[in-house]
């Protein structure tokens, strides 16, 4: 029974992926057929055609999202400590929720003006900064719960034993938070990887991340291309996650 429920549970979360993969190589999918009437690799071929530059945008997007994730996680980790130990902690933390208090698409419309004003529009640097503005507050909120009394006592213990603040940070706090850091890295990576609204508006379509390149297909009529675009979007983070899985879940148990 327990196994059956678990299998059903897993199925619910795996099914959409199977559907995306199947549709990405399908043609003609009319009710009531369960599977498409014909199969074709044409769609996969068309996105890897020479004029599309998909490989290029894949590497650039990976570099963009990795660096955003690294910076957002690092800055979030360091700065959230100041905020967490501030007497008016709650009030400051409230401000970090702001980026999520506005729907991303609307936020993009509001920020577009400023990016144009300062000449950051249509450039990778501009997009990088814009994405950091949404990824970084996540890091702050993520780590705000991490700086608790226990951590504080740990730091104090190091100082009492004669260690410096730097030593406390590098030798104790950092190793202790490895699991949390990796989870935050992964999350902020995803925030950047899937970011479309800001990237397309601030990048004016010139900054072609993979998401910007294939997102349009998801909203168009051709479900097979939409499914293919979906596959292209989830495969890279899936690979990253696969590599990190051991750390993600076991790291925190050590």
């Amino acid at each position, binding site marked *: 029974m327990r196994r059956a429920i*678990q299998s059903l*549970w897993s199925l*619910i*979360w*795996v*099914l*959409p992926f199977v*559907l*995306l993969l199947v*549709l990405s190589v399908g043609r003609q999918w009319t*009710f*009531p057929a*369960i599977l498409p009437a014909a199969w074709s690799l044409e769609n996969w071929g068309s996105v890897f055609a020479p004029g599309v530059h998909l490989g290029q945008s894949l590497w650039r997007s990976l570099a963009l999202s990795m660096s955003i994730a690294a910076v957002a996680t690092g*800055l979030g980790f*360091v*700065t959230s*400590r*100041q905020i967490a130990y501030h007497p008016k902690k*709650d009030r*400051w*933390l*409230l*401000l*970090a*929720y*702001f*980026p999520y*208090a*506005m*729907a991303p*698409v*609307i*936020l993009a*419309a*509001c920020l577009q003006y*400023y990016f144009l004003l300062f000449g950051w529009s249509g450039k990778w640097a501009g997009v990088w900064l814009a994405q*950091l503005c949404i990824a*970084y*507050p996540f890091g*702050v*909120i993520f780590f705000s*719960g991490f700086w608790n009394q226990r951590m504080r006592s740990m730091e104090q213990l190091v100082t009492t034993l004669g260690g410096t603040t730097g030593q406390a940070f590098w030798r104790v706090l950092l190793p202790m938070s490895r*699991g949390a850091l990796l*989870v935050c890295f992964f999350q902020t990576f*995803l925030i950047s990887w899937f970011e*479309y*609204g800001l990237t397309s508006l601030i990048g004016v379509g010139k900054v072609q991340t993979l998401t910007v390149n294939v997102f349009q297909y*998801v*909203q168009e009529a051709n*479900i097979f291309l*939409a*499914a293919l*675009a*979906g596959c292209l*979007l*989830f495969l890279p983070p899936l690979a990253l*996650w696969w590599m990190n*899985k051991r750390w993600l*879940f076991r790291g*925190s148990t050590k």
Partner: protein
Amino acid sequence: MKRIWQLLSWAVFLALAVLPLLAGWGYAGAYSLGLTGLLSKGFTWGYWQAVLADPAFWRSLGFSVYVSVASITLATGMALAAVLAWRRELHRGWLSYAVYLPLTLPALVVGFAMFQLLAKGGLLSRISFHIGLTDSLVAFPDWVNDPYGIGIIVAHTWMAVPFFMLMFFNLFQSEGLALLGQVARSLGAAGRQVAWKVYVPVLLRRAYPLLVLYGLFVFGSYEAPLLLGAQSPQMISVLAIRKLQRFNLMEVPQAYAVSVFFVVVVIGFLVLMRRRGAAASLKI
């Protein structure tokens, strides 16, 4: 040295998290009052009046609250149950892989996949036709583009459960709950009592900021409701973007008014919850 670090930290926080938002909000506010904008004719309350007098706007606000509360409640319940029941399996085994998959899908793709699954012409309807549950496409229930937001809630729950499981699972470790459970048990608590009186309250309280954050994300979500929602009522972001990007440029300031209002609602809610949260944490 320490002082410099502190100052730097605050500077980064203000520059990256606070400043863009205040600036964006200020722009939206100025736009909604006719103070800026290419077609603006000077200061007016007209756009605000138009928005606040529109019953569709209020319905849309209520609908957004309903969808976020429903999605978060469902997802929290499911994730808590799964984490508490299957702690061991979440460490290893294929379940540990399967449930975390959805973190790798963006909302738009989830919306698309859910549509292909739940629509009357979708996969579930086809399966139900083949096993004889329904005798035609039309007989399958309305699960997408429906007035109750079923499709949107399913999509958000589907996305949130794995995220919440990851969070609860990590909290369980970091809070040393297994130890607390043992203590409770040795004091004579039954398994069910341990779950309800120890695990659930601690997990919920610790997860509270991220649950609220996620609720806000659902409240302001755009892609899933765009693909899975009905035309009326629409979720608030869908409504705002429609006014921002559709045919009538005269409605653009209204879109900004909706956004400003939206932020006010969210902040009001946050302040309220924080007060309550503080009060509750004092009691414990």
